[in-house]
C-alpha cells in the first residue's frame, strides 16, 4: 500500500511529457525514475558548473583529454549542440560552406526522394508532441527539410529509413535545421562507416564485428547464437541503424551520442557489449529463437539502462579493452568475408 502511494505521488510530480517532448509510456516506472533523477540532478548540476567554466569566453571547442573526460561524464543539454558541432567537425564544415544548406533546399528536387521521405513523416516519433501535426512549431517540416537536403547532398545514400530518427534527435537537441543537417552529415558521412549506402555493407560488417567481439569476450552467448543459427542482424540491427534511438531511454541515447560524436563509432560496440555482458545469464536462459529475440529486447529496458550516468561508466569498464586497431582489423576481416559470400 505504501509503495502504491509512493508510486502515485511520483506520478503526480513527474511530468507526463519528458523535456524533449516525448510522452512517457503507459508502463513508465515513475517511482524508480524519480529516485534515479534525484541523484542524477545533483550530478547534472555539478557538471553544468564545470562545463560553464570550461566553455567560458565562447571560444571554439578544442579536442583534448580534459574535454574527453568531461564528455564521458555527460554534456549538459544547453551545451550539447555546441559541443557536438565542435568535436564532430560539423561546425567547421558549416563555417566553410555558408549558404550551402539553403542552396540545397532551393535547388531542383528528386521526386522519388521526396516521396520516400514524406512516407515517414507521420511515422517519426508519433509519441513526441513536437512532431505532431498541428503542434506549433511543428518539427515535421524541419525534419523533412533536413532529410531532403541531406538526400541531395549525399546522393549515394539518399534517404534510408533510420536516418529520420537520427535527424529527429538532432533537431530536438540543436533546435536548428542547419546544424542538424551538418551533424547528420558528420554521422552518416564520417562517423558511421557506410551504414546507409545501398549495399549497407558497413552496417553488415559492424554486426559481424560485434559477433566476433562477443565470440572472444562472451563465448557462451556466441555459442547460444550459433546453436540456433541465429544471425546477429536479427537482434541488433536497430542498435546500429538507429544508434539506440527508440531502443534505449532518450537521456541514455544522448549520453551515448556525446561520446559517439567525440570518439567515433567504436562507442556502439562498447554499448552493445555492455548490454550483453550485463545480462549474460538472462540471455543464456533462452531456449529458442523467439526466446533469444525477446531477451535481447528485455536487456534494453529497466533501471540498468535508465540510470544513464552509471551506465556510461560501465561502458568504459565492462567490455574491457577495445583498441581502435583491433576494431579496424576485425572490420577488414568481416568485410572481406561478406564480400566473398556475395
Amino acid at each position, binding site marked *: 500500500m505504501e509503495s502504491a502511494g509512493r508510486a502515485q505521488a511520483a506520478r503526480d510530480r513527474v511530468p507526463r511529457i519528458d523535456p524533449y517532448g516525448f510522452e512517457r509510456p503507459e508502463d513508465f516506472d515513475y517511482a524508480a525514475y524519480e529516485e534515479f533523477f534525484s541523484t542524477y540532478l545533483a550530478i547534472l548540476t555539478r557538471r553544468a558548473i564545470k562545463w560553464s567554466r570550461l566553455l567560458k569566453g565562447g571560444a571554439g571547442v578544442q579536442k583534448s583529454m580534459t574535454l574527453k573526460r568531461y564528455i564521458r561524464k555527460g554534456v549538459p543539454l544547453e551545451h550539447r549542440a555546441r559541443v557536438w558541432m565542435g568535436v564532430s567537425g560539423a561546425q567547421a564544415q558549416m563555417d566553410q560552406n555558408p549558404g550551402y544548406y539553403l542552396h540545397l533546399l532551393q535547388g531542383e528536387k528528386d521526386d522519388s526522394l521526396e516521396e520516400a521521405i514524406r*512516407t515517414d513523416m507521420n511515422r517519426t516519433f*508519433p509519441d513526441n508532441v513536437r512532431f505532431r501535426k498541428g503542434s506549433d512549431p511543428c518539427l515535421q517540416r524541419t525534419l523533412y527539410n533536413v532529410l531532403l537536403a541531406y538526400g541531395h547532398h549525399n546522393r549515394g545514400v539518399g534517404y*534510408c529509413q533510420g536516418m529520420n530518427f537520427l535527424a529527429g534527435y538532432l533537431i530536438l537537441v540543436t533546435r536548428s535545421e542547419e546544424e542538424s543537417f551538418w551533424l547528420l552529415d558528420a554521422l552518416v558521412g564520417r562517423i558511421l562507416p557506410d551504414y546507409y549506402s545501398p549495399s*549497407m555493407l558497413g552496417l553488415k560488417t559492424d554486426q559481424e564485428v560485434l559477433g566476433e567481439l562477443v565470440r572472444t569476450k562472451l563465448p557462451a552467448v556466441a555459442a547460444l547464437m550459433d546453436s540456433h543459427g541465429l544471425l546477429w542482424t*536479427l537482434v541488433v540491427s*536497430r542498435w546500429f541503424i538507429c544508434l539506440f534511438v527508440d531502443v534505449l531511454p532518450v537521456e541514455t541515447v544522448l549520453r551515448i551520442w556525446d561520446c559517439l560524436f567525440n570518439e567515433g563509432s567504436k562507442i556502439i560496440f562498447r554499448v552493445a557489449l555492455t548490454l550483453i555482458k550485463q545480462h549474460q545469464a538472462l540471455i543464456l536462459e533462452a531456449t529458442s529463437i523467439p526466446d533469444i529475440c525477446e531477451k535481447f529486447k528485455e536487456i534494453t529496458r529497466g533501471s540498468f539502462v535508465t540510470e544513464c550516468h552509471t551506465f556510461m561508466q560501465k561502458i568504459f569498464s565492462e567490455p574491457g579493452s577495445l583498441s581502435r586497431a583491433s576494431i579496424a582489423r576485425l572490420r577488414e576481416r568481416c568485410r572481406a568475408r561478406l564480400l566473398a559470400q556475395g
Partner: protein
Amino acid sequence: MAQVDGAPRPGAALGQACIFKLVLLGSGSVGKSSLALQYVKNDFRSILPTVGCAFFTKVVDLGAASLKFEIWDTAGQEKYHSVCHLYFRGANAALLVYDVTRKASFCKARQWLKDLEEEFHPGEVVVMLVGNKTDLNQEREVTFEEGREFAESKGLLFMETSAKLNHQVTEVFSAVARELLQRQEKKEGQRQQGDARLALNETPPGRGRCCAH
C-alpha cells in the same frame, strides 16, 4: 543453420503445435507491421517504420489442428532489400502486402514474388497476396479484380484487408495456416506412399532453380 530446409519444425513435445515461419514482405508503409500487430496483439496505432526486422509469434487454433506462427516482419524500404533476404531463409509462408491506394506498391509486390521464386522451389512456400488499407476505399488505385486476377495467374492466395479496422486480418493468417496444414498432410500422405519426388524438402534452399515465369 536451424530450419534451413524450409520444413516446419515439429513442436518440442508430442502434441505441441508445429512451427511455421511466415515472412511479411512489401513496400514501405503498406501496413506490414500493422497487420502483424493487429493479428498478434489486437492493436492498431501509429507504428514507426521497421528497420531491419521485427519478430512475433502466435498460435493458431483451427479447431481440429493448431500450429504456431513465427512471424518475421521486414523493412519495406528498398534499401533494406539486401538485408531482408536473410530473413527469407527457411520460410514456409509469405504474405506479399501492398497498399490498395498505391499502385506502385502493387507493382512492388510482383517484384517481391520474383525474388521469392528465385529463392524457393515451386510450391515450397505458401504465398498470399494481401491488399491492405480497404478503409481508404475512396483513394483506391488497385481494384479488387486486379489483385485477384494477378493472384490467380500466379497461383497465390488472395485477400483484401484493413489492419486499421481489423477487417479480414485474422482470416488472412488462418487461410495461410489451413493451406500449410493441407499441404503438409498431402506431403505426408505421399511420403507414406514412398513418392521419390518428395525429396524436395531435403534439398538445400533452392538456388539456381526458378519458376517458369
